[in-house]
């Protein structure tokens, strides 16, 4: 196992009376591709927000390459896409990309914006305000904004939401070529199998299973789809 890039140790997070995460622990090696799998309300998005440094855990230790989330060093190497993201509504696609590139201090924001628009087929919308784009194009723009700085660690919350099938394929291929550490939150098993090789299964704020996707496949009975295995594990864990 290589160097550890993400450590999430005994994390507890409450929102009032709701226990969102209950003593959750896992670690991800650098260059690892992990899926965070679980039903709605399982605690997936909370886990990603804590890793992105947007919210703080009530208890436990969280480290990104040995550093605390939210520090400048981590911000420079991390890319986080929330669920249902909304870029800067009043700014055009191009302006959004250039603006965030300039804020990140990337050299030549104009050129980088151009590259990202090419990558995500956004060129024809470059002068359209983000608030007026279709939901699918907003998702593409958001992915472009997150990947602008070639982050070493990528946290994606339901990245393929709203995308049509050809775009999903394009995004999957782009993500596969990246040499980064991935933690992808999803409740769709096929996305997990296409983009990752490890699964952390979470339900009601607790980890119910973690391991390789191949192990998961091996647990299936004859002709049993992998989704049934996942459902079975989640039911047992829940």
């Amino acid at each position, binding site marked *: 196992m290589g160097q550890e890039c993400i450590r999430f140790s005994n994390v507890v997070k409450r*929102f009032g009376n709701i226990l969102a995460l209950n003593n959750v622990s896992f670690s991800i090696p650098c260059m690892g591709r992990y899926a965070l799998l679980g039903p709605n309300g399982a605690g997936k998005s909370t886990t990603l*927000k804590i890793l*992105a*440094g*947007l*919210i*703080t855990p009530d208890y436990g230790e969280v480290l990104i390459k040995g550093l605390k989330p*939210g520090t*400048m060093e981590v*911000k420079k190497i*991390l*890319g*986080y*896409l*929330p*669920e*249902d*993201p*909304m*870029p*800067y*509504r*009043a*700014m*055009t696609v*191009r*302006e959004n990309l*250039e*603006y*965030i*590139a*300039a*804020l*990140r*201090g*990337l*050299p*030549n*924001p*104009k050129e980088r914006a151009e590259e990202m628009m090419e990558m995500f087929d956004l060129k024809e*919308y*470059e*002068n*359209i*305000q983000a*608030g*007026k*784009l*279709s939901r699918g194009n907003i998702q593409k723009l958001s992915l472009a*904004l*997150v990947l602008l700085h070639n982050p070493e660690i990528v946290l994606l919350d339901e990245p393929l939401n709203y995308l049509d099938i050809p775009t999903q394929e394009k995004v999957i291929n782009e993500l596969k070529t990246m040499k980064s550490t991935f933690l992808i939150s999803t409740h769709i098993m096929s996305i997990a199998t296409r983009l990752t090789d490890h699964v952390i299964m979470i339900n009601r704020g607790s980890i119910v299973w973690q391991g390789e996707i191949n192990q998961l496949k091996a647990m299936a009975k004859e002709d049993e789809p992998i989704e049934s295995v996942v459902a079975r594990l989640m039911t047992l864990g829940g």
Partner: protein
Amino acid sequence: MLWKLVKFLVLSRVGKPTLVLLVALGILTSLPLLLFHYNKETSLTYSYIGIFFTIFFTLSPLFAPQKGSSIPGIIKSDMDFLFQLPIDSKELALGLIISNMIVSFLIFMVGISILFIPSLGLLAFPTLFLISLIPPSLSVITYSLPLKSRISITFLIVLWDASALMGNPFSPLSMFFGYYEGYFLLALLDVLLLYLAITRFNTVGLASRYFAPEEKEVMKSISFSTSTPFMVMLIKNLHFLEIGGRGNILTAQTFIVRRVDVRWLILVFTIIGVVFLVLLKIIYSPVVNPTVINATYYMIFAYSILIPYMVMFFFVISAFAFEPLWLYLSIMTPLELARNYILSKIIAIEVVLLPYIILIGIAEGPIVAMDLLIGIPLSIIFVISTSARFYPVNPAQGRVNMTPSSILFGFIFVIPALGSVAGAFGVIFGVISLVIYLVFLAIISLPFMFSEGYWKKTFERYITMI
């Protein structure tokens, strides 16, 4: 059925606690004014203000978008579910208008009854109720019409309203000058508008406009180069400012952000400044024309200070409502984001208002100009910081129901605006009152710029809302 529909529509936009708060605040604000009305002779100034606000509300549907998901009074849930129900379209229209009318009336009771009661006494309540019907019905009548027709219809009504100022007893607002015909004509106008709205209401037409694509190219886009985060944010704000944000248009809380070119804004405020300069220095100057009643001069003077505060409010009320915090916070810390955001907004707004402030300074002296120059930035800090914390907006929703906190937040703005007017008036009687006001404003606003914990908690609340 209609009653059930109205009840459902009202409660789908405003919760019960909010309704209770609105009624309680309405009673609290109107009772002392009723005593004032029946015990003292009222100045005509209130009549002018009453007419001004009625015209403002009549004009409001003109400024609301007629395409896309911001059609006033309609929320996406109406399109998705309500319009699918087997309810007669006329009943639906009536339900929507009546529910809008009820909520608008309650809001008016809290917000503007203080301006109507001194002139009309108890009759202010039926007047406000009748006025509350104008914006929603006008909105339903005109939403599908071309802009020219919308402007023509609206201005016809505005002209009829405004004719009360010329002493026309047959204006729907002539009651402000003692003509009882006004009440009858206002009711007649309401009946006419309601009839037209019901006959013109068309769910299919509304839905097709609601879901119409809004893609429209921005002609002049901004180019960014690598710099400090503050400079990058300042460049953005110096190119365009957003207007709108947390606002209520016809019951449904609508969060609209419009891109407004800063150069146009500078021009517009220079013109307004010149108008005030002429009014204060030449037409109504107590020195040049001592026969003119001082009350008019002081009213214009008060407006000359209130207007930049209102402008400031419109520019900052969208603060953090649509900001991609998930992106910003992956670049800078919460305190850095708050500082960069607020300071860049302050500079941009001061640039827009600077010619206006200079002109007011020429009209009223340097101390009044200093009041605006220092008071506005401090107020920006105060309004942005408090609205971010106590009136957070979930960008994914776009619209939210009116809540008790959003109503109470509206009163926060009163502190800097009225304080500034008091401070400026204080200049006439002694500079010390202005100094006290500015020190007070500094004490309540500046600590926000240094509190890491405050902004961390504020943004965490936003993040967990999404």
